[in-house]
């Protein structure tokens, strides 16, 4: 779509402006009516009124979390697709969500963990472990990481973790109540504090992902070609893997399993800017934030006054897309 560097730069700028507008919309829109003036006042003349509390404690964290999580998941997805040459690769497919959920439930059931901070760390660990296992399983054998092996390994790990999770939840209903909402994936009801805990890792991931773009360009031409050009592919993969774990693990820790952003967005980015990962990665970040902010705003209105978990929204957006790609053929 966009050919010149100038137009790509402009596109990125416009995208960032849309993100800012959506953050504002996310703060203002919802069941409780809020005006821009109130938002300003809540910063400068906080008076403890209901609206001000909602703005400060609910709406702002929610908008910022949606932005950070959406961007991180999409970037993680684009790196995964670049590294594995698999158009369906995404954090969700790697069983990251199920692994994180499992660790959190173990924490609640066996170690009576109650602090949100510890939840975060458990989720982070689970996500990383699951991603590593699926990657290793999927890349066994002479033909390396094939989409079908990876998909099957991811599905198996997800099935294992989720049935263990469910087993523990049947023994412990209190945990079910606490965890169910987290397991569904949501950016609502999370403290800004959780975001602040994870943000340093996300920022490291974001910066590193911009650096690695050039290497992924080389690698996405095929492993043999990359080696022929003198790239140490193992190092690139390892570095990319660490970024994915930081970003995807961090996102899951904050918001629970929100699927399909990491799969859908890189495709849209590729459609916009072509195959250059130096552009795909930043575009994925911006577009991911836009998608999650919009999905979250939509989640408030769909069955008002109740809310649809945003993970459910993204699944409904993402699955038709997934099926389209699967039908088109994964090798094209």
């Amino acid at each position, binding site marked *: 779509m966009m050919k010149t560097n100038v137009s790509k730069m402009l596109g990125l700028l416009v995208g960032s402006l849309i993100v800012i507008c959506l953050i504002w919309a996310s703060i203002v829109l919802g069941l409780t009516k809020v005006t821009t003036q109130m938002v300003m006042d809540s910063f400068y003349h906080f008076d403890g009124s209901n609206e001000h509390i909602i703005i400060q404690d609910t709406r702002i964290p929610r908008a910022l979390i949606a932005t950070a999580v959406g961007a991180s998941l999409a970037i993680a997805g684009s790196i995964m697709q670049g590294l594995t040459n698999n158009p*369906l690769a995404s954090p*969700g*497919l790697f069983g990251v969500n199920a692994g994180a959920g499992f660790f959190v439930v173990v924490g609640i059931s066996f170690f009576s963990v109650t602090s949100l901070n510890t939840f975060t760390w458990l989720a982070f660990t689970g996500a990383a472990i699951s991603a590593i296992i699926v990657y290793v*399983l999927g890349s*066994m*054998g*002479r*033909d390396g990481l094939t*989409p*079908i*092996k990876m*998909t*099957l*390994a*991811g*599905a*198996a*790990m997800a*099935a*294992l973790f989720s*049935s*263990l999770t*469910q*087993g523990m*939840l*049947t*023994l412990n*209903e209190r945990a*079910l*109540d606490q965890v*169910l*909402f987290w*397991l*569904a994936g949501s950016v609502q009801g999370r403290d800004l504090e959780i975001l602040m805990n994870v943000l340093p890792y996300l920022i490291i991931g974001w910066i590193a992902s911009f650096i690695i773009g050039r290497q992924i360009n080389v690698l996405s031409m095929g492993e043999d070609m990359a080696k022929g050009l003198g790239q140490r592919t193992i190092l690139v993969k390892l570095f990319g893997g660490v970024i994915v774990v930081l970003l995807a693990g961090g996102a899951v820790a904050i918001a629970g399993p929100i*699927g*399909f952003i990491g799969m859908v967005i890189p495709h849209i980015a590729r459609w916009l800017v072509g195959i250059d990962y130096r552009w795909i990665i930043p575009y994925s970040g911006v577009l991911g934030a836009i998608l999650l902010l919009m999905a979250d705003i939509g989640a408030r209105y769909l*069955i008002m006054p*109740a809310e*649809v*978990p945003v*993970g*459910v929204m993204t*699944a*409904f957006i*993402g*699955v038709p897309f*997934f*099926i389209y790609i*699967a*039908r088109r*053929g*994964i090798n094209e």
Partner: protein
Amino acid sequence: MKKNKAFRIGNISFLIDSKSLLIIFGFTVLIIALMIASLGIGQMQVSPWNVVKAIFGSSTDMDNLVVQSFRMPRILLAVLAGAALAMSGAILQGIIRNPLASPDIIGITAGASAATVAFLAVFSDRSNTLTLSIHWLPLASFIGAVAMGLLVYFLARKNGGIAPIRLVLIGVGLSAAVEALTTMMMLLGPIYTASRANIWITGSLNGTNWTEITTITPWILVLTIILFVFARRLNIQEFGEDLATNAGGNVQKDRFILLFLSTALAGGAVAFAGGIGFVGLMAPHIARRLVGSSFGALLPVSALIGGIIVLLADLVARTAFAPLEVPAGVFTSVIGAPYFIYLLFKSRNK
């Protein structure tokens, strides 16, 4: 000596060798022994001999009650569900020609789960009581399984045919959508629904009664008979699309019928026993190692092994944490997932 014997009655035809017959006989004896042992084990222990007497109603009243009313339906359901899931998996592995296929991987179980949770959510009122008899629940989950099977089939169809890889990918993708739907319904519904649905999704045989057995048995019996009629077409499928077409099979039509049979079997099992995972994956594999891949012998041996797996899983589920019950599906997954990974490892260079 001729090793294989051919069975041919009109349209039904399959090869079976004497070793396989011996294995089938051996497993039948084993499963009966295990059933008797399992009938005796629990909070109230009954000796095997008394179990046999109780089956015919000639032991003490207490033994008769425990064995006949409490344990027997449950154990029969375990065997039936296990057998159905195993055959369903054997068919899928034949069609998809991938040893890793199973009803859970391509999303049939997820479809049934979603329909069940929808049933619980739609037909329960504010005070957490069902407005419709619980007996309709199996029908709902069966419809869910079949609908999902058809949806996967038609979405995976392209240019008049289904490629196995597409079938798997679309199954995995649709499972994700359906699971999202399930979670949403569990969240919006009352907590009673959530915990009840959660147990069911994982697969539990707790609280089975005779009505369920009398409903599921004819179902599985009829499907099994149809399946044996089709066994030889399944054999052809194993060769792959080109060779099967050359051999004169109507490959796509057979695939559709076989897929429907597989879904119906899995749907029936899931409807009554819940989503007991990985049985459809493990049992056909073990069976193939024992009797090879001709479906005449493979199907019955798979069914027997599937029955044994679920029977043992249920035995552990109700005794390990007594008086608490863990869904049997947890145990099958704990064994099944590592097995799956082992298979993935073994087939890494194929």
